[in-house]
């Protein structure tokens, strides 16, 4: 057993603070899918930035567009049916959507890497894990097979897979779920990227293994000072690792906040509903708070604020006007850094 002290020093996020360009910036990104039932608007104007050493958690239910945004950043969106009608994805100030496929390929994997949810389906079942790990070095760095294999063993050691040397020739099905996820992490880490996008990295794992994997990820992030985009629907995981949070609903970011602020004082009724629906000790035997209704169909997103049919505070203005992301301030008007809420009534929500 190891006991881990959570009060360790987290390096200060660098980048935006000193005025330089952020590591990754997503500007007004739109993604739509053309289907037989019409156009599904999966992402409708998403903005966020990530700096080195920083963890941004993107929180949302299924269908909120959180994974589609990540796929657009990686450039692995299926197009068609997908389409990006507008928006920019800036990696160190360069727009990846307009650059050539070759230039993009140099960034993907080397600078920005991704960890997928289901390691068993993300790994190729007929190739050994050593071969798949080594592929990164052979393709991007032109190493020989032998050198690539040595590198693969080194990587497996780094993600704490026991007996890496003996297991390098094993196939994905011979590993347990937690070990497979470690291999996914190793693969993403291979070329020491600046940014890792982790799409529900622990959803398929048991809690005791989830804790191991999240700790490993946090440790490696600190070591390399990487940026991390963590996509999840689990409010608990977010509270554990994130620096800042973006809450998504129906393809838009409805609230952004530093992690502590969000849990203490949510400024959007959707966020508040999510937090209230977590069972708490003092509510035992009482009815849980439940957000009424269902997430919207993306081909027919409600007019105005997408959350209005489910919102307890909805007024007429919510049904007609799309709320912009308002900067959230204290009651006396002083600024709250990094906070925003796409709600016409954010003042009432946060200040009661």
């Amino acid at each position, binding site marked *: 057993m190891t006991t881990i002290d959570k009060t360790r020093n987290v390096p200060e996020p660098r980048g935006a603070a000193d005025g330089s360009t952020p590591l990754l910036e997503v500007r007004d990104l739109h993604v739509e899918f053309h289907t037989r039932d019409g156009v599904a608007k999966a992402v409708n104007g998403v903005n966020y930035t990530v700096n080195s050493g920083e963890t941004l958690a993107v929180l949302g239910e299924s269908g909120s567009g959180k994974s589609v945004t990540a796929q657009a950043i990686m450039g692995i969106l299926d197009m068609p049916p997908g389409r990006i009608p507008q928006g920019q994805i800036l990696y160190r100030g360069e727009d990846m959507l307009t650059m050539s496929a070759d230039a993009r390929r140099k960034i993907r994997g080397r600078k920005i890497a991704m960890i997928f949810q289901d390691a068993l389906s993300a790994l190729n079942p007929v190739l050994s894990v050593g071969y798949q790990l080594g592929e990164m070095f052979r393709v991007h760095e032109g190493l020989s097979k032998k050198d690539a294999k040595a590198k693969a063993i080194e990587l497996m050691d780094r993600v704490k897979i026991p007996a890496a040397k003996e297991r390098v020739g094993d196939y994905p099905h011979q590993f347990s779920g937690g070990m497979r996820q470690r291999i996914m992490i190793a693969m993403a880490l291979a070329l020491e990227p600046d940014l890792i996008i982790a799409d529900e990295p622990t959803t398929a794992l048991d*809690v005791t293994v989830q804790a*191991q994997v999240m700790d490993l990820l946090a440790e490696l992030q600190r070591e390399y000072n990487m940026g991390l985009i963590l996509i999840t629907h689990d409010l608990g995981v977010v509270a*554990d690792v994130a620096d800042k949070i973006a809450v998504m609903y129906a393809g838009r970011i409805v609230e952004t906040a530093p992690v502590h602020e969000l849990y203490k004082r949510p400024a959007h009724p959707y966020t508040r509903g999510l937090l209230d629906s977590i069972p708490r000790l003092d509510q*035992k035997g009482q009815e849980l708070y439940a957000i*009424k209704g*269902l*997430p919207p169909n993306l081909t027919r997103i409600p007019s105005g604020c997408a959350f209005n049919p489910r919102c307890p505070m909805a007024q007429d203005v919510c049904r007609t006007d799309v709320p912009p992301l308002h900067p959230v301030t204290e009651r006396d008007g002083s600024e709250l850094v990094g906070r925003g809420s796409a709600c016409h009534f954010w003042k009432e929500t946060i200040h009661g």
Partner: protein
Amino acid sequence: MADVEKTDESMDATPNVTEVETVDAATDEEAVAAIEAPVERGEPILQVRNLVKHFPLTQGILFKRQVGAVKAVDGVSFDLYQGETLGIVGESGCGKSTVAKLLMMLETATAGEIFYKGQDITKLSGRALKAVRRNIQMVFQDPYTSLNPRMTVGDIIGETFEIHPEVAPKGDRRRKVQELLDVVGLNPEYINRYPHQFSGGQRQRIGIARGLALNPEIIICDEPVSALDVSVQAQVINLMEKLQDEFNLSYLFIAHDLSIVRHISDRVGVMYLGKMAEIGSDAEIYDHPTHPYTQALLSAVPVPDPEAREGRDRIILTGDVPSPANPPSGCRFRTRCWKAQDKCAEEVPLLAVPERFKGSDTPAAHESACHFAEEKDVVHAA
């Protein structure tokens, strides 16, 4: 048959739970009468004793040789009281779903007994078994695969009445199905729709309506909300609590989400690798866990409160759950336990109130299968 030996050993290792008052029924009629008899609130309605399920591992094509067994459930005992919710938690592969299947008689137990109102249902057949099956119903995990896509909602729920026509006479069925839809919060006019026309939360309501159709006394819920979106989970949990009060149901609630289990359960059992590690009231398990596995499990759960993460000690277990085909000797948890000593490898710990807490009325005095059971203050998951 090395297996039989193992089974005996696990039987010795089970606790001295309360004696079961069995009912001797000579005929089917007597058995059915006993099954139909009401049970007082707070009395045991379901008593499981030394339940064992081994899935054989075979080798060879023509002459199948048994080379071993996956010991999915290996000597589990517990009581379910009328009107209560018993939560079962544990990681994947610990046997909690197999227990559910055994109680539903979807699998035959390798050994052990399941007493429903004093009758061992593993030995029943014919009319008596049918009567038991009517009274124990199940809600499944995945509302996308547990509803037949080619049947309308009316057919899915109404099918139960074909098998048990005594519950609703033929002409009455449509009305009865609509009533059930209304009870679970769906529009009764949806009776002719197909499952794909509903969202996940609505489908789970259909699954619950099907479970309720025969007025059962026990509903076994196998991860009923884990496939649902966070904002919809609370709706379904509220519905299940409302129905429990309304129809006086007993729930066996299997889940891996510890905070939901705490919210809904009166008592909680923690399973590890086919055995019950610890069982007690919700407060006893969550606030005063004495089994190291329970402590590790509780501390590993991410808490949705960033304040709590600061300065908190977390127990991070090393390694994975061992294979149930070849479980460790003695205590099953010893390979990942930080307290493990030689004794743990030799002796299977009994699920009983630990010696040191016996007689005292501290909340730590509940059944725990550990040689070195002691309280440890862990960060609470809920």
